[in-house]
């Protein structure tokens, strides 16, 4: 499903015409929304926790240089090797060359959005290294040969029926019973020996703890620890905005992250990784590498997107987005879908190719309402619209139309006249209280009726009334 050449609108229309996709989206996001709502009723401290989380992130971003250096110092002291990558390409090249140095034939991967962002799956495949995705959803994505469509549930676009078919086609000992339990078991059997035979493990990080140099991952399946423990080398890739001052700060963020993502209080597994295997340890990697990735983050800092660096990748914004819930994630065309993706994709891919994303939004504000760190997503999206307008990326018809409208609307008498004419024209096309077949209204009337206007405008009638008084 390589869809780059298609326009956003074409991708959207294709998604809208796919009832199976809609069913899949509704099942997952519906469940997520319900579970989060329940979690919120059980956590009346959410607002206070959210304010605290927001301030922690803002504090870290405000002193990011300090925290990067503190983290680096402590990570090195723990025996980790720290690498820095300016761009996506640089980051995936570092990982690939570490794999090559390790003589890796097979690598196991833990789901990481940053890994997707830097194109790591592709880079590993190009390098001829066998890549085993161990997160169940990423395993499904890998089998399906497509891309993640959600940051928490990457295979959200697949129904259980589709997953069942894929597993039957490719698993060595597939499920016999058509239940989700049996399918999960099938994946468990399939991946078991791969965990233990990999040469390198690659994971991401939910938090980087500055005062210990530890990286923290939160997962539910247990695949992360099964992935990162047996191989000789473990590589963590993480964005530079993932820092928190201390473990206690990580916990404050954790309470927000998990409830917002899945509605659970905590994930089943919260694991801190601090350096390689220590003397006496029963297991663990000999080498532990951390790749700190910029890839546009410092640009965001400078270009008015600082608040977006608070994002902890919970996915609540997309689960509650009316547009995402119609389209799913692939239509967005980038690593991150939904409202947060509509803010981030223009950073990574440029506004020119992604200008539809910040526009295909009703600015209804629900995403900010559910965001656990109160990111003003509508404001940031509007910021991209401003920029798109300034850079001349908006269609000429729009620019001319808006200019004309403003010209008229800033001259009240001309505006009254224009209103009267518009009403007259609309009424010419009106039958039974509805405007039909009027040129220029097609985008509306293709899908719904356009209510006919009253005979005269409010201002005209009001003027007459006042005269009569």
């Amino acid at each position: 499903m390589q869809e780059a050449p298609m326009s956003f609108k074409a991708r959207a229309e294709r998604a809208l015409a796919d009832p199976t996709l809609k069913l899949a989206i509704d099942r997952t996001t519906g469940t997520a929304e319900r579970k989060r709502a329940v979690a919120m009723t059980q956590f009346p401290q959410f607002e206070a926790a959210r304010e605290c989380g927001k301030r922690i992130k803002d504090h870290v971003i405000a002193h990011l240089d300090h925290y990067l250096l503190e983290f680096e110092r402590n990570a090195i002291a723990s025996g980790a090797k720290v690498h820095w990558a300016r761009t996506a390409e640089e980051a995936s090249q570092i990982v690939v060359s570490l794999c090559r140095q390790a003589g890796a034939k097979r690598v196991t991967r833990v789901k990481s959005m940053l890994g997707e962002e830097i194109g790591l799956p592709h880079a590993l495949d190009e390098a001829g290294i066998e890549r085993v995705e161990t997160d169940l959803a990423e395993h499904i994505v890998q089998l399906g040969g497509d891309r993640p469509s959600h940051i928490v549930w990457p295979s959200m676009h697949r129904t259980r029926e589709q997953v069942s078919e894929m597993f039957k086609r490719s698993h060595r000992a597939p499920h016999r019973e058509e239940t989700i339990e049996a399918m999960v078991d099938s994946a468990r059997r399939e991946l078991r020996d791969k965990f233990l035979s990999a040469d390198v493990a690659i994971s991401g990080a939910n938090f980087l703890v500055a005062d210990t140099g530890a990286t923290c991952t939160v997962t539910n399946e247990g695949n992360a620890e099964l992935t990162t423990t047996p191989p000789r080398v473990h590589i963590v890739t993480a964005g530079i905005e993932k820092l928190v001052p201390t473990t206690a700060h990580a916990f404050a963020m954790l309470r927000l992250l998990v409830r917002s993502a899945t509605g659970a209080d905590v994930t089943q597994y919260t694991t801190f990784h601090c350096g390689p295997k220590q003397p006496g340890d029963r297991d663990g990697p000999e080498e532990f590498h951390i790749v700190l990735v910029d890839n546009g983050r410092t640009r965001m800092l400078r270009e008015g997107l600082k608040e977006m660096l608070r994002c902890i990748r919970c996915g609540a914004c997309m689960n509650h987005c009316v547009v995402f819930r119609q389209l799913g994630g692939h239509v967005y065309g980038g690593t991150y879908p939904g409202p947060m993706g509509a803010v981030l994709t223009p950073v990574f891919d440029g506004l020119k190719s992604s200008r539809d994303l910040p526009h295909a939004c009703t600015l209804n504000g629900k995403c900010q309402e559910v965001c656990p760190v109160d990111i003003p997503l509508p404001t940031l999206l509007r910021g991209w619209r401003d920029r798109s307008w300034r850079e001349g990326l908006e269609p000429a018809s729009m620019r001319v139309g808006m200019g004309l409208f403003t010209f008229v609307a800033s001259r009240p008498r001309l505006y009254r006249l224009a209103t009267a004419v518009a009403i007259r024209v609309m009424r010419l096309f009106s039958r039974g209280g509805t405007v039909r077949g009027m040129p220029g209204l097609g985008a509306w009337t293709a899908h719904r009726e356009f209510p006919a206007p009253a005979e005269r405008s409010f201002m005209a009638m009001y003027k007459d009334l006042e005269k009569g008084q």
Partner: protein
Amino acid sequence: MTARDTILNAVRLGLTTPGVDPAAIRREAAALLVDPAARRPSLLSDSLVDAFIARVTSPKVAATAERIGTATELPDVVRRYLESRQLPAVVALQPAAILQSLDWSGFEKHDRVAADETIAVGVARWAIAETGSLVFHSDAETPILANFLPLHHVVLLRANTVLAYLEDYAAATAGQRPPRNVNIITGASGTTDIEGSLVLGAHGPRYLHVVIVDEHSALDEAQITA
């Protein structure tokens, strides 16, 4: 210029006040965490052990738990656990002194956990009442894989190691060299990756059984400070 310098320079260009005194930053960071009670959920009971048990056995965590008087009862608990599930008396035993010292006669035991291990018996360092979590540190007595490979995970927990909140764990370990791995384990492995429905036993254990021992012996003391 190295990537490191480029990034650090770019960060500083984007900051309003770069180069703040580290001590001031630390104070500011600490101040963010004042009044923790206002932003944490309340515990399910005043007693930490009861609160922990209520949480760990709640539908959200969905583990099972039982209490015993002394650690010596653990083998019997495991025997009953296996019998009731018609499983053979073969256990992978975490190589922790407190477990190895118990009488496991009648069991076939080993300390290397196999890929398809049915049951492993381990011991947690701490538990968190807030979340119903168990805390493990990797070390000579704690292979991390033992927590993840088996289908059934039976974990011994000393009642006096139950902490109230996650931050209390951070406080309890402050200033110590962190282990390679800290596992905070809350219930059995689960996935919601297929249509959002929860299925247990994704890759890690499908069943988690916590055995809380009330007794506080010299042996336990040794384990805590290990």
